């Protein structure tokens, strides 16, 4: 197959399917310009001049951006009409699925094709490991979970689709027979994290997951109860973990008058990410060319394409494409819920089973509740021991069980991240946390903002508050005494990268008027109301432990800057962040920024093998000898990677473009000779109002530098790949005769108006595979204060005032950070007080849920004019930016529960806390 140079190609092992990727060109939609409904198109990029958002005009003018906006007629070269698909899901998981009542769909509303489990067998499809489980429940079996798909109905006209969806929505279209028990499965994952610190604060640990490796159970009994190895101080890691863990638990179980011991449970509920754009997409399979085109809106573009390729990789000839081209659109909210979703698989099936016809598959909101990824409900049992004399936490033990729902998805990982976050911002010398990610017949849970730590740190921060009260210590003072110092070790046993700024955050909270005046506010409560103030402070990792950053920066002769990135825009303004990070180095705002461009990195000729999370060191060392090999090529836009990871590539590319393009151009314009000491001082140059300023030299505008760089055929384009496993991979390269080592593992450069050519790396240093034992090494800290007023008679709660403070390194777009803090507050408030999904038959899997039952925060629920957000300045100007989109919603929850405890005297141990519950304790 002949592919153009600009297409990024990856051959999928074994399947022979060629994968290519394209972003959606929002300027090139035919048929719309005639109607002049999209005035912003021609000038959709307002970043020129450093003002506004890259996607601002498109979003306020209704341009086609999201996957749900595209129909066949919008896609150049596609057939004109769009067919429509309905993904039918089971609303029962305790009876045998017998079939569909297709008699309802006679005549004009009859589907052209009905795809069921039997058809997948006939076609020879495979299920990607990540989505293991039947894609459709076969007739004669009990569905694996509520909301499991049972069939795809494909309609050639909108009229037929519209009539059919109304005809099947009531009653018993999906038919069930005999009652059965729910399908039982062993848990998706389980681990035990034990750490015993050594006698010296900064000395080696006695035992830690980092030293010994992560430990799982021998087996499970009674369904979900893990059986751990018998304890032994000298046996394998699993025996040592049991030995030390059991010691910690024994200590916590022994009465000691010097120790405050609290034994508590806490439960958090399942919630829906409720991104506003339901999952949707478009797919077209041309059987003559055997090309499958997909239009998707996901957080994980590369994964989506890989999964579809796996699905069809061994299919029978009639069902197997030779080429899959994936178009990526903006997403209407993600919050994790669009990372590794099975939705693209069903889109692909719809197209494959209706060849020649572009097919649209789109959830309505009921279907999104029924089938979309949920947040895990957690049940947590925690014991904590605090020295009464010093107010220092001595020991901590917790057992977590989380409901993963019907498919594994990210459940094992959410369990681990939640467990490793269970001690929050604290230094605790002895910790034992076990976790079990259980299967259930509920809707599948997976990645969602907070990713396990939201649940465990909420439980922790509520417990910490109770402990402080019991010790008669100010809650912030208690936190300060126990805060992990910069050189302190996490539960995994590693230290954080950079300064741990907990004390500064705590000081900010402590000195805030909301905290200082809390006693007065309480006594001044209006008649019929109780008032309380709560605090919480948490740390959240960012990054997933295998994160990639792909970027190109190209400079035109007139000084225009174009950036391409593989990151996905989901509302985080990542495009604007990229432009800002590069602008600080390049001296000018990008004129064009394109996101989700997985397609332009062909010149790097990257290849990969193995699993970046689980490979061993020898395999990595062997693979790394090939200069084109990287542990992973492209990774999802999730885990708060935007600021730190996704902009890393652009920053690295900008630095190299400056050093090898703009700087030598400046030297040339100044007439500086090669031997002059100034030639090597590119790092001392500063941008000043768009001109390059060096003392004693004429200021030079970017346009002049760009023109000279092109004229002298200097570097005018840089393409890089970066990889982070809790540290960046680094390698040595030689450009223009100069060798340098920097935090990238692949590089291509362009001289003048030439083509990109790959530069072979030398001395590559990938982060060692043992770093996979870290929980994280990147951390962002956020604290929140809230004051609530609760009406005694009704239990109605109002947030009177709130304050959040975050530290996130260098802030790329402060308005975006503030927006995330405000949005995180709203989502945290919803988790604490509003949102609730019952787990099973009454829950979202029954297909009847919408925003009437499922209440998310509205403006009237929030302190719109009384929410103060503060961002700490970076420690040094060189601090990298840090991810913060997850952490900002977490302390809100515990702060609210603590404020309620302050107001009512009752500490709730399950979420959400409703007015009826408040009314109950205020009677």
């Amino acid at each position, binding site marked *: 197959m002949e592919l153009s140079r600009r297409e990024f190609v990856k051959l999928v092992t074994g399947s022979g399917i060629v994968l290519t990727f394209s972003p959606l060109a929002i300027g090139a939609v035919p048929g719309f310009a005639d109607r002049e409904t999209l005035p912003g198109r021609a000038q959709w990029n307002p970043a020129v001049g450093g003002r506004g958002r890259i996607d601002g005009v498109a979003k306020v003018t209704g341009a086609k951006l999201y996957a749900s906006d595209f129909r066949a007629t919008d896609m150049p070269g596609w057939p004109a009409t769009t067919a429509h698909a309905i993904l039918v899901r089971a609303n029962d998981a305790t009876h045998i699925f017998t079939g569909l009542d297709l008699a309802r769909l006679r005549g004009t509303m009859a589907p052209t094709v009905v795809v069921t489990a039997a058809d997948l067998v006939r076609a020879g499809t495979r299920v990607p490991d990540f989505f293991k489980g039947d894609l459709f429940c076969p007739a004669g079996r009990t569905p694996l979970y509520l909301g499991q798909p049972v069939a795809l109905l494909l309609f050639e006209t909108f009229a037929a689709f*519209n009539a059919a969806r*109304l005809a099947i929505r*009531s*009653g018993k279209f999906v038919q069930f027979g005999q009652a059965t028990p729910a399908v039982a499965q062993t848990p998706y994952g389980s681990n035990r994290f034990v750490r015993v610190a050594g006698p010296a604060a900064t000395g080696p640990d006695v035992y830690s997951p980092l030293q010994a490796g992560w430990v799982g159970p021998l087996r499970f009994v009674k369904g979900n109860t893990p059986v751990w190895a018998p304890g032994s101080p000298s046996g394998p890691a699993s025996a040592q973990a049991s030995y030390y863990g059991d010691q910690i638990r024994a200590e916590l179980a022994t009465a000691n008058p010097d120790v405050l011991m609290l034994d508590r449970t806490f439960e958090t509920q399942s919630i829906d990410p409720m991104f506003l754009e339901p999952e949707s997409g478009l797919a077209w399979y041309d059987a003559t060319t055997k090309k499958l085109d997909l239009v998707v809106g996901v957080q994980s573009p590369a994964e989506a394409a890989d999964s579809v390729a796996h699905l069809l990789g061994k299919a029978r000839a009639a069902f197997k494409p030779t080429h899959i081209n994936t178009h990526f659109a903006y997403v209407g909210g993600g919050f994790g819920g669009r990372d590794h979703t099975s939705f693209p698989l069903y889109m692909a099936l719809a197209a494959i089973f209706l060849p020649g016809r572009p097919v649209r598959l789109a959830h309505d909101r009921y279907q999104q509740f029924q089938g979309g990824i949920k947040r895990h409900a957690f049940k947590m049992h925690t014991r904590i021991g605090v020295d009464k004399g010093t107010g220092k936490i001595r020991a901590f033990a917790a057992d977590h069980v989380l409901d993963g729902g019907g498919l594994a998805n990210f459940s094992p990982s959410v369990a681990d991240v939640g467990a490793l976050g269970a001690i929050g911002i604290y230094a605790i010398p002895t910790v034992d946390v076990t976790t079990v990610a259980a299967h259930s017949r509920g809707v599948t849970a997976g990645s969602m903002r907070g990713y396990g730590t939201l649940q465990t740190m909420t439980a922790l921060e509520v417990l910490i508050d109770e402990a402080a009260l019991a010790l008669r210590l100010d809650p912030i003072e208690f936190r300060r005494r126990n805060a992990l110092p910069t050189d302190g070790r996490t539960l995994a046993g590693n230290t954080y990268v950079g300064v741990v700024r907990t004390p500064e955050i705590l000081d900010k909270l402590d000195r805030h008027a909301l905290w200082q005046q809390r006693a007065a*506010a309480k006594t*001044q*409560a*209006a*008649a019929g*109301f109780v*008032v309380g103030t709560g605090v919480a402070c948490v740390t959240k990792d960012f990054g997933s432990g295998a994160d990639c950053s792909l970027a190109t920066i190209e400079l035109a002769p007139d000084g225009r800057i174009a950036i391409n990135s593989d990151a996905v825009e989901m509302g985080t303004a990542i495009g604007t962040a990229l432009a800002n990070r590069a602008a600080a180095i390049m001296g000018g705002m990008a004129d064009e920024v394109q996101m989700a461009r997985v397609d332009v990195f062909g010149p790097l000729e990257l290849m990969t093998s193995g699993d970046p999370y689980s490979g061993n060191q020898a395999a990595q060392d062997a693979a790394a000898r090939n200069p084109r090999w990287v542990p992973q090529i492209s990774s999802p836009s999730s885990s708060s990677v935007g600021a730190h990871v996704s902009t890393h590539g652009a920053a690295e590319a900008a630095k190299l473009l400056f050093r090898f393009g703009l700087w030598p151009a400046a030297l040339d314009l100044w007439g500086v000779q090669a031997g002059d000491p100034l030639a090597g001082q590119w790092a001392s140059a500063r941008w000043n109002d768009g001109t390059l300023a060096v003392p004693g030299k004429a200021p030079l505008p970017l346009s002049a530098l760009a023109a000279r760089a092109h004229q002298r055929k200097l570097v005018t384009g840089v393409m890089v790949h970066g990889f982070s496993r809790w540290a960046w991979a680094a390698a040595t390269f030689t450009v223009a005769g100069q060798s340098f080592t920097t935090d990238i593992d692949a590089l291509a450069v362009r001289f003048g108006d030439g083509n990109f050519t790959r530069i072979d790396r030398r001395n590559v240093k990938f982060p060692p595979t043992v770093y996979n034992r870290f929980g994280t090494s990147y951390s962002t800290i956020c604290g929140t204060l809230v004051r609530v*007023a609760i*009406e005694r008679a*009704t239990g*109605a*709660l*109002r947030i*009177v*005032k709130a304050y959040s403070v975050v530290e996130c390194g260098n802030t790329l777009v402060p308005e975006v950070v503030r927006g995330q803090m405000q949005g995180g507050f709203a989502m945290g408030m919803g988790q604490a*007080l*509003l949102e*609730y999904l*019952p787990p099973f038959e*009454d*829950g979202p899997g*029954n297909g*009847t849920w919408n*925003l*009437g*039952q499922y*209440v998310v925060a*509205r403006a*009237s*629920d929030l302190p719109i004019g009384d929410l103060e957000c503060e961002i700490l300045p970076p420690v040094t100007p060189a601090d990298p930016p840090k991810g913060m989109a997850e952490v900002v919603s977490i302390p809100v929850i515990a702060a609210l529960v603590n404020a309620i405890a302050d107001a009512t005297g009752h500490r709730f141990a399950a979420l*959400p806390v*409703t*007015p*009826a*519950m408040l009314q109950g304790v205020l009677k």
Partner: protein
Amino acid sequence: MNVQRQVARFTGIVVMLAVLVAGVTEARAADPPVTLAAPESFAAIADPAARSAAIFTELGRVLTNPRCVNCHPVGDRPLQGEVANRRLHQPPVARGADGFGTVSMRCASCHQGANFDAGAMPGHAHWHLAPLEMAWQDKSVAQICAQIKDPARNGGRTLAQIHEHIATDTLVGWAWAPGFGRAPAPGTQAQAGALVDAWIKTGAACP
């Protein structure tokens, strides 16, 4: 900061119902119809007052039905859903000066002249909230009976006008044809009208 004033301003908006956690599914249109007893079936009750009260109690099954109560709320915001999962109306709307919504959110913006079953949307040309004094939410049938007879709390209606309202008003009649996804009120509007008529003729006694 004057906390009291702010609290007073917001309480009407932030009140949330316990039904959030009730988690009961929507009633299905396919559920079998629920009937009303005819006035004649109370003939065996000899005491006219007791008979009258019993007839009203039967009528009370209509009056306390969600199709009626949801728009006779105690506050400014209507309710939604069935008995088991009744909840505050989403999106948050308020009765406004005329009972037809606020200036920015009029009832008729969503509730058109008739039900739109494709959108599971109820409609009627005069969709609006009952005045606050006619609130039935959380009241017993006996309390509603006293209220419905009291001209100060029934819109100044005579008993005959009450009968006319229940027996013939087309917005009231919507309760028996609420469209897709909603269980209708028990019986028929004619049967409810007959009960009102019989209740009045037996002395309009309250339970």
